[in-house]
């Protein structure tokens, strides 16, 4: 495709991708519905069974998947720009490791399943705080590379905690915890969807408001300072908002890997360069990607479901490798 053509079709394409993914996710499954039946069910008309399938089972699930994709996409795009690193993603700040520790501890202590997202969220926020503390203790003034290294170290530490806990936990708890870590939106409800929407809108909105600052930060700290920004303080605010959004998605559905890493590259591939459109585009592309990944997760091997995180990783890894070749 020529650049001029991409320039014209980019936004319709992204919006269409989300709408098409939503419609497919609502229509397809063990009971597949015709477009007319989907439309009737969405309006609350016709077959009551179809209404239940669409409004209670599939739609909240698809919307939750979309919100997770949108949150991880925005978060990843903001972090890559701010850290000036195409390999940055929210999980690397310790979000995933911390959330997993929180969830595994909750499961092994026999905490009720409804509190598992809260434990995961607390673990994620705590791990991000530790990551920042470690990076700060290393004596750097917000050096993104040190921050990424600190995130890796915190992640490794989290892994060892998880292994220690799982090694001594009863086997059904281990299964629950492992399943949770693989990511799933199977238990989606409207209330869960609503509170994730609040986090994604607030955090994503903040990142969007700072998107021109991200443009400036991506020029490097010295130039950002020359243009009137306090680079470290601005970057910290962006890291915090991005980590919060990612932590909320992890609390809602466990670990959905590679989305935050891959999605910004897809949108950049469509010729988007400045961060305001990049963040919006990453929200759309992330939403479409995770909705479709979840559709695949529940329809490829019925009646059992594949872990959502495994599907996104299987799609994400080859794509990312191809990007890596171009970056090299």
């Amino acid at each position: 495709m020529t650049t001029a053509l991409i320039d014209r079709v980019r936004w319709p394409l992204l919006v269409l991708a989300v709408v098409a993914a939503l419609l497919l996710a609502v229509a397809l499954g063990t009971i597949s519905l015709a477009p007319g039946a989907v439309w009737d069910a969405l309006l609350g008309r016709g077959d009551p069974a179809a209404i239940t399938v669409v409004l209670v089972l599939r739609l909240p699930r698809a919307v939750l998947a979309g919100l997770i994709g949108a949150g991880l996409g925005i978060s990843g795009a903001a972090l890559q720009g701010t850290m000036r690193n195409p390999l940055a993603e929210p999980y690397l700040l310790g979000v995933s490791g911390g959330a997993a520790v929180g969830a595994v501890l909750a499961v092994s202590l026999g905490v009720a399943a409804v509190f598992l997202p809260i434990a995961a969220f607390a673990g994620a926020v705590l791990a991000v705080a530790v990551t920042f503390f470690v990076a700060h203790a290393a004596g750097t003034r917000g050096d993104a590379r040190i921050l990424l290294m600190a995130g890796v170290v915190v992640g490794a530490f989290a892994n060892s905690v998880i292994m220690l806990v799982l090694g001594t936990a009863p086997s059904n708890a281990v299964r629950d915890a492992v399943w949770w870590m693989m990511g799933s939106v199977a238990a989606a409800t409207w209330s869960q969807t609503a509170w994730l929407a609040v986090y994604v809108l607030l955090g994503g909105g903040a990142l969007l408001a700072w998107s021109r600052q991200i443009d400036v930060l991506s020029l490097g700290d010295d130039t950002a300072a020359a243009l009137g920004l306090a680079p470290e303080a601005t970057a910290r605010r962006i890291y915090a908002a991005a980590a919060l959004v990612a932590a909320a998605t992890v609390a809602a559905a466990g670990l959905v890997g590679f989305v935050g890493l891959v999605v910004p590259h897809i949108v950049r591939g469509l010729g988007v360069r400045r961060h305001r459109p990049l963040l919006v585009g990453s929200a759309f592309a992330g939403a479409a990607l995770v909705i479709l990944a979840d559709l695949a997760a529940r329809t490829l091997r019925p009646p059992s479901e594949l872990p959502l995180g495994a599907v996104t990783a299987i799609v994400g890894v080859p794509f990312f490798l191809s990007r890596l070749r171009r970056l090299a």
Partner: protein
Amino acid sequence: MIRYEDVVVRYPGASRDALAGVGFHAERGRLTAVVGPNGSGKSTLVRALLGRVVVAGGAVRVDGAPVTEHGRGELAKRVAVITQREDLAFPLTVDEYVALGRFPHLGGWRGARSIDRDAIEHALTRAGVAALARDGRRVQELSGGEWQRVRLARALAQGGEALVLDEPTTFLDVAHEMAAFELLHELTVEGVAVLLVSHQLNLVARFADEIVLLHDGLVAAAGSPDDVMQAAILERVYEWPLVVTRDPAVGAPALLPLRVRRRT
């Protein structure tokens, strides 16, 4: 306009001060050049102006007030700075990059108004990169010389009454280097305070109104090109045998480093 008063800077863990009490000033309508050997503290001066290093003693003032008392955004409106190194992590077009020079005026949300568009157009033309912008070229595809001129355009778009440049003519060929110096001269005629960190002693001697020679974090000499460009001073600072002649065409002092014959 920009005044360094006994500025002392020491990097954490360093055994000596990067700047050990440096004082001079760069005024409107003048081209002030800072020269000196590698490691003499030139770039630290720029970093101190930007608040990127802790100033342990003395003060850097802009229009009378210490830089720490100006808001960062306010300072960026008055003083445009081109730092020594800059690598973009992600692609941007020339136009998008130069437009970021308006950030101090626009902030996070406001869209470009006609005054901003005019400033960008004007800057692109003056820096000689309007064609690169028109062709939609990406910054990553540019040659080293084109990139330097695009960075100059970004600083010009920023506007302001002072322009600070750290080694801006590295990678420029003779014609582009001369064009860049002529442009800096034009800016001083228009009343801009130009503070230039450079290794190009002979060009500096022809264009600068005042030269500040740094050595080991101290001012070794300061004054007109004739005052500073003296063989005895330069030989001591650069630790290399040299002669200072006079450019036959323009009459400015010219430095000629000598070859050292090694015994074999």
